[in-house]
């Protein structure tokens, strides 16, 4: 076994190397069911974080991943990438274009509610932060093994809210409404 390379901050100037023009598109713009998922990243003083990068990874509407380790076979959605990345702007805002994923098998034969995994990278974060986006009005949330394990007071930080053209998911790095972050 070899020990892993340690993480370091992405720094404030990652926009030289990481963003792409089509980065925010997990699906083609006009994919059936596509919507905008938008949010703001704020710090412990409630100030927007203008130098963060948001990355998302998710299953397709059938609950399949575009990856050979998904033992159920290839994704069924043409043009589906499942990955998006978007830097925050001067007001801390980010947005990705995506579709709602299907439910995904969990450990021990359980079914996980539809969700999107998120990485948050920024100056001042020596390692990325990981969170999850769940969907509002999703009956499967009640039985989701991850969501059910979270303190009910903090659980709403993991659930997106409806908006005019899609969904909103704000990320609070620190403080009273701090987003739940995960380790694995």
């Amino acid at each position, binding site marked *: 076994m070899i020990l892993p390379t*340690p993480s*370091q901050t992405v720094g404030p*100037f*990652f926009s030289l190397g990481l963003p792409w023009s089509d980065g925010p598109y997990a699906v083609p713009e006009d994919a059936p069911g596509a919507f905008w998922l938008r949010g703001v990243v704020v710090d*412990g003083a409630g100030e927007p974080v203008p130098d963060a990068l948001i990355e998302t990874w998710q299953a397709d509407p059938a609950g399949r991943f575009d990856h050979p380790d*998904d033992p159920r076979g290839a994704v069924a959605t043409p043009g589906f990438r499942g990955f998006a990345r978007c830097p925050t702007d001067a007001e801390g805002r980010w947005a990705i274009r995506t579709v709602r994923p299907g439910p995904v098998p969990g*450990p021990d034969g359980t079914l996980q509610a539809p969700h999107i995994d998120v990485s948050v990278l920024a100056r001042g974060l*020596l*390692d990325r932060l990981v969170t999850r986006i769940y969907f509002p009005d999703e009956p499967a949330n009640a039985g989701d093994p991850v969501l059910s394990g979270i303190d009910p007071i903090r659980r709403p930080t993991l659930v997106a809210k409806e908006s005019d053209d899609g969904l909103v998911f704000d990320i609070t790095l620190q403080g009273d409404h701090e987003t739940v972050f995960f380790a694995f």
Partner: protein
Amino acid sequence: MAEWITPAPYRSDVEGEQPPLAVPTYGSTALRSPRQPLVVLPQGLTELTGPLLGEGRVGALDHDLTRQHEGEPQGERIEVFGRVLDGDGRPVRDTLVEMWQTNAAGRYRHAGDRHPAPLDPNFTGAGRAMTDGEGRYRFVTIKPGAYPWRNHHNAWRPAHIHFSLFGQAFTQRLVTQMYFPNDPLFDQDPIFNSIRDPAARQRLVSAFDLDATTPEWSLAYRFDIVLRGREATPMEDA
């Protein structure tokens, strides 16, 4: 549908080998590090898969930062190369490696960089490469410079190159920095020293490799990158 086996999970971080999120000597962590403990997320298919990027994204000259403009950039020409491996020593093949850095004078080509050092019209400072079947990658660039930042009195960042990797799974995602051997600025840099285990810290330092230099052309530094390995090798079908 055939019966299927969940892929084996990836190993968790070991104490001291990864930086803590709150580091008092690194000012920007003060308002950005979560105060609540991280919640352990069981590794399901979302975490055991990940974006396989690169196909169609890397141009022929993306790995050579000295040939992205009409003229040659100023500075000490270097090759940076190595292998991307997982924690079991297996090569991570066909994976995207992204990198970015300052120019030779220690300035990023970025509107937010206020260091009064010259910009180089022939240097952007970003590169992309794919690993080959053995997990190898290679960049041609110039040695980045040190630069001051306002973290503490007379704070200077050691010369470094930022690296970004995805591996094969969401759990393997890594953003790190490569440093150069024997840098006199190591001792006062809170970002480098955020890795508390001195042996782990040294894994961020590249090795000068005289044998890999190109005579009368460029010096060479080797930087091997190790992503998390699996907990256990999945059982082969009987």
